[in-house]
């Protein structure tokens, strides 16, 4: 065969080009055109998705700035045997780096140092002016250690020096450890954070718990609704569909506030219960400004994300299947479990995954109705982003959130299979 082809003359097009070349050319044109068509989308995804996520991952391990401000101090710090207070060399290095460092660069470093130990910021701010004065006077001290401790006793506090162990790596995992209530001790070993401050692990567990509850309740509540929608005659189901969509189109804030009015102690539900005599006036139930409120409000808000995929899957399940199963002798319950339910799995998966993903990163609703124990991890991302400017910790929390999602996705794929997902 090969021999035959190689010996025959090439087929030429009218322009005298070999057909193969001409075909390739035409195809390349098409390919370029196709690429150009998707290029804006590709660029969009790159700019809005890939770059920010990459930036977040980088930030979560980046501690390079402080290492450019105090390189010599950290160099000497690494040599220190970790006994008592650091040696003269460490004090000398930080003395010069504070005296000569550029204001804004040092300022940025201070914000970062304060994450590791509250008080770094004011310690350095209070002493820096005097350090500069001594440096400018030209009469350098014989002992930098004594001089610094003289200026402010904080320089003799070992707690500050212990915390420095958290800053000396340019690529660091400290933010990840902080995000799960852990920190480094003076030797760089991972230890638990001060007991009173431990709350990230609790918040993580709470976030997962609320997300699982919300997904579960959405499924329980959404399934019958979707079934009804899919099986009622069109004129009724359209009306019902509006009832599902209307809240979906209503502002999130309006719905959240409405739930506060419903659930609070002097609210509608408690009022009705008291009026009916089910509970006494002084026994009003606290249903909002806590986790209960968060779960109730989020379930209602996310319900359409469960109902709509379920509905679109149920809509195309032929009614004859159930009838056939029952004809063949299955009782209605058995027919439902063995024949109908398995066919709705793609819808349940799509809805479940959608609700869970939205719930795990939810911010505004828990913020408003969460109160004492209903706030989720999103609250802390916002807090550190805005208030403490600890963007490393923000990025670490965000990356963990991403990782949790990927693990769940992987688990899901193992158990149910991702091809099984269906939005309609």
């Amino acid at each position, binding site marked *: 065969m090969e021999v035959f082809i190689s010996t025959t003359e090439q087929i030429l097009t009218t322009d005298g080009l070999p057909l193969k070349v001409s075909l390739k050319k035409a195809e390349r044109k098409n390919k370029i055109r196709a690429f150009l068509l998707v290029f804006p989308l590709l660029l969009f995804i790159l700019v809005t998705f890939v770059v920010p996520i990459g930036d977040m991952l980088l930030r979560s391990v980046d501690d390079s700035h402080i290492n450019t401000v105090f390189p010599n101090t950290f160099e000497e710090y690494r040599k220190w045997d970790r006994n008592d207070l650091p040696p003269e060399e460490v004090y000398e290095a930080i003395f010069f780096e504070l005296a000569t460092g550029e*204001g*804004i660069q040092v*300022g*940025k470093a*201070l*914000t970062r140092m*304060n*994450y590791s130990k*509250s*008080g*770094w*910021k*004011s310690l350095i*701010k209070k002493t820096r002016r005097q350090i500069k004065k001594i440096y400018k006077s030209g009469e350098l001290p014989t002992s930098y250690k004594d001089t610094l401790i003289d200026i402010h006793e904080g320089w003799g506090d070992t707690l500050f020096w212990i915390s420095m162990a958290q800053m000396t790596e340019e690529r660091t995992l400290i933010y990840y450890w902080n995000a799960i209530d852990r920190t480094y001790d003076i030797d760089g070993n991972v230890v638990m954070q001060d007991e*009173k*401050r*431990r*709350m990230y692990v*609790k*918040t993580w567990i*709470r976030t997962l718990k609320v997300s699982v509850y919300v997904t579960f309740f959405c499924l329980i509540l959404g399934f019958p609704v979707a079934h009804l929608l899919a099986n009622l005659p069109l004129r009724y189901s359209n009306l019902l569909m509006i009832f599902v969509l209307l809240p979906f189109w209503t502002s999130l804030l309006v719905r959240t506030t409405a739930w506060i009015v419903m659930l*609070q*102690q*002097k609210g509608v539900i408690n009022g009705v219960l008291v009026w009916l005599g089910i509970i006494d006036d002084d026994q009003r139930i606290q249903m909002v*400004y806590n986790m209960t409120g968060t779960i109730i409000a989020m379930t209602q808000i996310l319900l359409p994300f469960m109902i709509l995929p379920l509905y679109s899957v149920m809509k195309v399940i032929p009614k004859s299947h159930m009838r056939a199963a029952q004809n063949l002798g299955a009782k209605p319950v058995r027919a439902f479990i063995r024949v109908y339910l398995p066919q709705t799995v793609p819808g349940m998966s799509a809805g479940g995954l959608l609700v869970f993903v939205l719930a795990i990163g939810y911010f505004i609703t828990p*913020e*408003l109705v*969460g*109160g*004492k*124990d209903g*706030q989720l991890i999103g609250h*802390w991302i916002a*807090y*550190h*982003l*805005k*208030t*403490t*400017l*600890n*963007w490393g910790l923000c990025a670490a929390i965000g990356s963990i959130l991403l990782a949790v999602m990927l693990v769940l996705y992987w688990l899901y794929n193992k158990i149910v299979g991702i091809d099984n997902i269906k939005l309609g």
Partner: protein
Amino acid sequence: MSKFFKAFLLAFLAFPFAANAVTVASWGGAYTESQIKAYKDTYSNPDIIQFENYNGGLGEVRAQVESGNVAWDLVDVLPDQAITGCDEGLFEDISGLYGDFIAADNGDGLIADMEANGVTNLSDCCGPQIFWTYVVFFDPDAFPGNKPSRIADFFDVENFPGKRGVHTWANGFIQMALVADGVKPSAVYTVLKDQTGAVDRAFAKMDTIKDHIVHWSAGAKPLELVKSGEVSMSIAYNGRVGAAVLSEGENFEYIWEGQLLEQEYLCLMTGAPDRENAIDFLIHSTSPASQAEQAKYITYGPMRASGIDIIKAGEPWFHTGIDVMPHMPNTPERLKVSVMGDPEWWADNGAEIDERYAAWMGN
């Protein structure tokens, strides 16, 4: 293309590039409304000033400065953020210009005028704005017998039954807890700084009413909570309570003791697109007259002493023709029972305490 469509497109395209405008980022609501009336409307060239709402914090400020794409000129920030922002170079050092700021009638310059009010200017990058406070208030009708009058009553659910409204972060509440526990208001920060276990002491006091707290997070919430009877007393921003009483005719009373006085600053962004005009507007808005003018629309107190003098001389000062001084947080007798915020200490310790507070709340 129709004319209308063209005009629409032009307006749409031109909007983000509105040239020669000073953009002031502020908190929105009645507060920004009062700034617009007191600063912008009284300015010689009001058309070039535009206010924009933001959610507070330095997050957006840092993002703008780091990316080199600065859209704001002036930002309204909390005092600890004025310090941090200035340290980090997010705001521009304007301390050299303080001499150009409008002096008080008695000749005091900006800095001296603030010191007369008990404040040292915190940051070299900002101009002073107002005092606002975390204050406890209640509806007197909820207490037919004895009415609460001291901050200790807020922590006494036996004699003053009902739930308490408290915010979801620590600042304000822990200072009140210390005052209720017997610390003199003026000594609260000294105790926090010098006594080990002072924070523990505050938390122990907070424990005594822990089960009676309803936690709010949005500034309008405490008013609803008290009005609906959900709680009998609540901590709130004093300006919100003042607005409810003066503008909406609500009947609320304050417990001034233990209130936490916080400052508010207007800071100049590094790389502000319209720097010259921004500085001019900053000077205008920090003048005693502008500061006093603002109290016509909201009950936050001027940070410059001379601003208060103008208000006192002009009573009834509120724009509806009511006396405003009864609602001002920083009258001399109220200052005696108030805690003066120490933003430097808070900038140092705030994050740690907030984390601890969150752990405490959720337990």
